[in-house]
């Protein structure tokens, strides 16, 4: 029973960490219809910079640099959208084109990290990295708990921003009906830029948080990007709440699944469930079916 509770707890912690990364992916897909293949690469970039290097250079704690990552990566994302992606989005075939372009970003980011910072696996070693609370035999990691709380805060913040502010509503309108928005005087390009920037920013924050308890190397992103895709598909592609739920499902399958299958096969369980889901309900948990003609 304790083992089971332990797996539930660690699955939840893991799930929320995926959820916050996937929330950015879902926002970007929902608004810009871009499948961002470089998404995890951005998160890994944030694991190095600011999280790892700020600590090494100036002793800034990663839990503080999370909040520095937000504006920096927002601007980074905004510039990438306005400078590059904007040129190719908009027509019917752009889904494949954007997927391919972001794949190019992933190659560039990962290999530049490899050249600049070497392929050595890195780990952030702070007092909370390995420390745990013992709650009735269930061990709960400090770093993961702090990360969980901040992640939930970020997701709620993003949700409120999109629903309560003028710009947020503009972004949602742009997602729903770009043409209508253009006629209503909403600046689509700037909405797209802000949405992409936000998506990257929240992902970068998620990456910083993940770096506090998980070793990483420049290609760490490749091992989680497809899990993140599965995550947003489970959640319905465009829904931020769905991304969180999808993350929880995957985290729990990965952890609880180890009771049934060997640890080395935990991703097999994830993708098997994912495929099953895809066949039965392709629009995802919180997704809507669209009219074809």
């Amino acid at each position, binding site marked *: 029973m304790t083992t089971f509770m332990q797996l539930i707890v660690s699955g939840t912690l893991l799930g929320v960490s995926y959820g916050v990364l996937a929330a950015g992916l879902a926002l970007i897909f929902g608004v810009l219809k871009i499948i961002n293949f470089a998404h995890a690469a951005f998160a890994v970039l944030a694991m190095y910079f600011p999280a790892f290097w700020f600590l090494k250079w100036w002793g800034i704690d990663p839990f503080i640099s999370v909040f520095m990552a937000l504006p920096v990566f927002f601007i980074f994302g905004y510039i990438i959208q306005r400078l590059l992606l904007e040129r190719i989005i908009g027509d019917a075939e752009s889904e494949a084109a954007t997927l391919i*372009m972001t794949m190019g970003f992933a190659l560039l980011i990962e*290999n530049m990290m490899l050249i600049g910072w070497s392929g050595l696996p890195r780990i952030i070693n702070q007092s909370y990295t390995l420390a745990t609370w013992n709650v009735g035999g269930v061990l709960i990691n400090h770093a993961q708990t702090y990360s969980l709380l901040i992640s939930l805060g970020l997701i709620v913040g993003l949700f409120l921003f999109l629903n309560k502010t003028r710009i947020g509503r503009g972004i949602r309108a742009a997602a729903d009906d770009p043409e209508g928005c253009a006629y209503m005087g909403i600046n689509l390009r700037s909405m797209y830029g802000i949405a992409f920037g936000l998506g990257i920013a929240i992902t970068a924050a998620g990456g910083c948080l993940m770096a506090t308890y998980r070793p990483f190397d420049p290609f760490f992103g490749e091992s989680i990007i497809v899990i993140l895709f599965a995550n947003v598909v489970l959640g319905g592609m465009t829904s931020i709440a769905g991304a969180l739920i999808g993350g929880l499902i995957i985290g729990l399958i990965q952890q609880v699944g180890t009771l049934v299958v060997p640890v080395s096969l935990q991703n097999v369980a994830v993708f098997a469930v994912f495929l099953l889901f895809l066949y039965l309900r392709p629009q995802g948990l919180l997704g809507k079916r669209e009219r074809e003609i």
Partner: protein
Amino acid sequence: MKAKIGQYALFLCRRYLAIIVVCAVGLIVSLLIGPNRYYQRILLLVLIWASACSSFNIISGYGGQIVFGYMMFLGTGAYTTVLLFKLLGLSPWIGMLVGAVVAALIAFIVGLPTLRLRGAYFAVATVAFPLITIPILNHVGFEEVSIPFIKRFSAMQFADIRAYVIIAVILLAVVLITVRMIELSRFGFCLRALKENQTASEGMGINTLRTKILAFILSAALGAVVGTVYAFGIQYMISTHSMFGLFIIVRVLSISIVGGLATLWGPTIGAAILVPLGQILDSQIGDVYPGAQDIVYGAFLVAGIIYLPEGIWGKLSTYLRYFSALFEARVRGVQQVPGPTETLADRQLTVGSLNLDFLCAKSSDTKTDSFILEVNHVSKSFGGIMPLVDVNMQVPRGEVLGVIGPNGAGKTTLFNVVNGYLTPEAGAVLLEGEDITKKKPHSVCRLGVGRTFQVPQVFSHLTVLENIMIGAFGRGQGISEASAIARRVAEQLGFSSQRCHDKAVGLSVMETKLLEFSRALATNPRLVLVDEPMAGLNPEEADRIGTIIKELTRNGITVIVIEHVVQSLIKFADYMVGLDAGRIVAEGKPEQVISDPHMIEAYLGKKWKERYARS
């Protein structure tokens, strides 16, 4: 007889001449390089990647279904061959074919459910398969498998790397000839059409799922053979990472995009540029900057998709076509040169009496009393909304039935239920007594139901003629018959022979509507469902549409029309049905329906009758 065979051989030679020449050039380059292993290896890599990307091109370029998990098939081929060789001693030459069969089987199993998904879902679904395979293979102890070294022909192992170059050249030739054959076949046309517009292709009688699965299986089987040659020629020891890793699809996509997807030569050109570049970078500065090769690939991807989205060959071929037209014009002494962005002046569209006898519509002379279409107690719901509630309708043969009603009354949903885009929750649809309720759109089309769409669904990048040919393909015609039918239909509906060769994207609204009619007629329908044909047309053009519809019935084709321009509709409709909120509220002669109090209340308005009487 002998002369005929000779002629045919000559024809084949000419058709595939370019491929034979290019492959011969590959061999000559190998000969010139001599025994230098390093350069021979680069050449071998170019040939292998060119073959892999050309195979990938079938489903993802021509078919437009980007298979992100394509490495699944390279890996399957390599692992099957190597394991059979190592464990059972089966010759790799046979193992290669077994690998291709296994890959084809996997493609069928993977494709059957995933190819129903669209866009993003499909891309993500396919990549899950290699990611499932890697941990399973690792788990059973096949993370790395060395190829036993037996220097014998039967073991596909040679001391001289040039032997592999010859194998790879032959492989590339086989792949390219396959691609060329597909390009010129009916199957290739259908692939291009479904890439452009899957919904319309399905409605025109193309079994899109079957077409996609066939393309997928071909891509997979060829990919598996390439995987085997890659393993034996380059690898010596295969690992799950080197055969199933994500980097493979990254390379394949980079090469295909830079060269040009959906073109015969694109992948080969992309490989000839990117592979040597990557190899040279790797060997020159690879030890100092280990990721240099991938940075170049990444930069090419980003720059390529912005500046050359159609790829190097895509761009080149546009110019080539232009210059060859220029050349031809000079030879013939014609002044005007049709350039890549040609627009023709308006031509007169005259509609006299249509003669569609060549279509031989199936029910033209059997004027029996039975109804051509019966809709019995059909209900359909989307979540809480009920667009159709217990709809009953009988459509008499050879007449025009008009369907009117306010927006959201369920008119288009009714059409979608009849031709199979939607399956109703309750009730049945009978076409001449045959139950078609659960049939897919392509089979309903083949049974003789044509369709035009509210929002026109033409294949924008196909020419007018090719658009109509897609309709003829649905009824099982080959290329030349389809082309002949398309020409006659186009001529009947007033397309000039020049206009026939323009892309559909540049047509006017009226021409687009006529194209939809032509395409529907080419499927040889007994019944045509026409959805708002007059929207966006001026009164004169609308009248022409009315004439055409009347002409169709004269040719024995029954027509059901949804239309908001009721004044025009009552001129040519024999019967009318009024829908409101998913129910049929009025039916009968047009006069009866427009006088029906419910229709006046819900749709026409009280003043309508007066205005109609005045006009």
